[in-house]
């Protein structure tokens, strides 16, 4: 049976309110300070490193993102770690807090569909993350200009902008997951713990576990199959996908994200940078995978939410 009226009705109102809530919340401020401070620290370390080894590098600016100096990890590995934290922080109580505050039935009794509430909350979360990440990106570029004294080239800007967009999708995966948990679990604390647990599992444990599983289940006489199998398994984790995309985008010399056969190396000029379109081509499956998992997780949450009883 078709229902009348648009599911988008009221979405804008919800987005606006959620955005206001996010921007003024203490939680968001703490996360922002955390991100900015750690990013500055890693950036400072990277700049020191780059200044010391003033090599002729056509992509000096991209080194800002990827260079690490002990004990500081690089800017991108920091982001890979902190962006999920931010997304989870914004999403883990998105839906269950409405139940706990007993506002859910009152809001849904207004002339909107549930779709609007869920869309609005997700889009508002993603917008908040985008705004913070954009600010961070500008901060990095600005600091790089000041401290390196070298203007970035067009391709560098393009690559780092693409990296920025991919980071938003990466955040989207975790936001969708956190919202899914907030739909399933009525207690915000449970939802937060479960999401954090899943994040730790996919980021830390799964990449280590994948080779072991591949070794256990694939025929050991063909080492190439085992390596490829392990990689395939590891790619189930969004963190692995993000890491690979970053590698391809920010390091133009990256020629492949999988194992290379000797035959493929014939005639290749080692270390020569690829054009942007080629780098995109290499990372494209990973990018699609990241977007697809965001959509998939969101849809699961959507279905569960639609079937949920309004009553707390």
């Amino acid at each position, binding site marked *: 049976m078709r229902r009348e009226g648009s599911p988008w009705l009221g979405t804008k109102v919800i987005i606006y309110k959620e955005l206001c809530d996010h921007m003024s919340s203490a939680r968001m401020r703490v996360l922002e300070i955390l991100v900015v401070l750690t990013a500055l620290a890693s950036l400072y370390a990277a700049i020191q490193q780059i200044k010391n080894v003033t090599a002729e590098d056509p992509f000096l600016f991209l080194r800002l993102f990827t260079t690490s100096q002990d004990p500081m990890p690089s800017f991108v590995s920091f982001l890979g770690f902190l962006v999920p934290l931010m997304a989870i922080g914004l999403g883990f109580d998105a839906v269950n807090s409405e139940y706990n*505050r007993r506002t859910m039935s009152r809001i849904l*009794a207004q*002339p909107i569909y549930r779709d609007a509430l869920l869309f609005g909350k997700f889009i508002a979360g993603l917008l908040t993350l985008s705004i913070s990440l954009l600010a961070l990106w500008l901060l990095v570029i600005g600091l790089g200009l000041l401290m390196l004294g070298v203007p970035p080239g067009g391709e560098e800007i393009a690559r780092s902008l693409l990296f920025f967009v991919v980071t938003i999708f990466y955040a989207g995966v975790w936001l969708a997951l956190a919202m899914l948990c907030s739909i399933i679990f009525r207690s915000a604390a449970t939802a937060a713990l479960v999401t954090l647990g899943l994040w730790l599992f996919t980021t830390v444990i799964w990449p280590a576990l994948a080779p072991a599983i591949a070794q256990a289940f694939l025929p050991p006489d063909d080492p190439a199959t085992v390596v490829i199998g392990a990689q395939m398994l590891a790619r189930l984790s969004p963190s692995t996908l993000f890491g690979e995309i970053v590698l391809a985008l920010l390091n133009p010399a990256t020629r492949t994200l999988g194992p290379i056969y000797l035959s493929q190396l014939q005639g290749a000029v080692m270390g020569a940078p690829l054009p942007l379109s080629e780098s995109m081509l290499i990372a494209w499956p990973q990018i699609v995978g990241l977007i697809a998992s965001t959509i998939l997780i969101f849809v699961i949450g959507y279905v569960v939410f639609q079937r949920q009883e309004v009553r707390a």
Partner: protein
Amino acid sequence: MSEDVIVAQGLTKRYGPATVVNGISFSVGKGEIFGLLGPNGAGKTTTILMLLGLSEISAGQARVLGHDPVRDPLTVKRRVGYLPDAVGFYDNLSAAENLRFTGRLMDLEHSDREQRIAAALERVGLQHVAEKRVATFSRGMRQRLGLAEILMKKSDIAILDEPTSGLDPQATIELLEIIRNLKQEGVTVLLSSHLLDRVQSICDRVALFHDGHIALMGTVEELGRQILGAGFAVVADAKGDGIAAKLHAIPDVLSVEEVKPGRYRLLADRDVLADVAATVASSGGRLTHLSIDAPSLESIYANYFQRKAQDGEGRHAA
């Protein structure tokens, strides 16, 4: 009643094997105050949610203002105000901001919205705390803010779920007064409660829920006659010889019972207070107390289920 604005036919809600609401039918006329009464878990809230299109209907049909809440929930929700059981607000926002948010969801124009918010807050007596955060509000103030939301919506129907639960007597009286005012403006009110005596004073008609069924429906007087056997119960403390027989002789008195020595309880079809007084006086007796019990929902309810339980036992014994 002129026209029915809420019609439910065989409304049923099942959760797996459990049937929470089982084939209930009722209709509410325009401008009426209709009470859904019964213990917790009898299916009142589920019925309300089905009428609003917030819960799926397993079987049967509902029509609210001529619209199907399953197919066209937006139209229904645009014209129906709903005050949920123990309503909640965003604690970090002020009373006016909370209303502003729902006003935006209702798609009200800015100037119209501000006007309505101010008017609604004044009607429920919250105008002086309009800019205070809701976190500081008491239970009664929250309920009133919920009513202000319905007033702001200018809805044709107000559905109130347990509006008086958890309120002190003073707050209850104030709330019932606001609900009465709603009726005067031609708003149809559907309210649910488990506090039978509190709401019987304002309901035109009631439906008594029991275990997913409507056990009884009608005006309080009708139900009293139906269940207690009479509309009026008179209690008289009198001394004298053969008073009981004389009281029984009064026209329309159905039964006389000597509850304890010197106290008689009469059931009658009409108000027989004057006749009782006259009878006792003329027979030379002394009348020390005389009072009339209007039929109370509490006693109707208790009586009905007592009888049901007895019937059940009888059947089992047979």
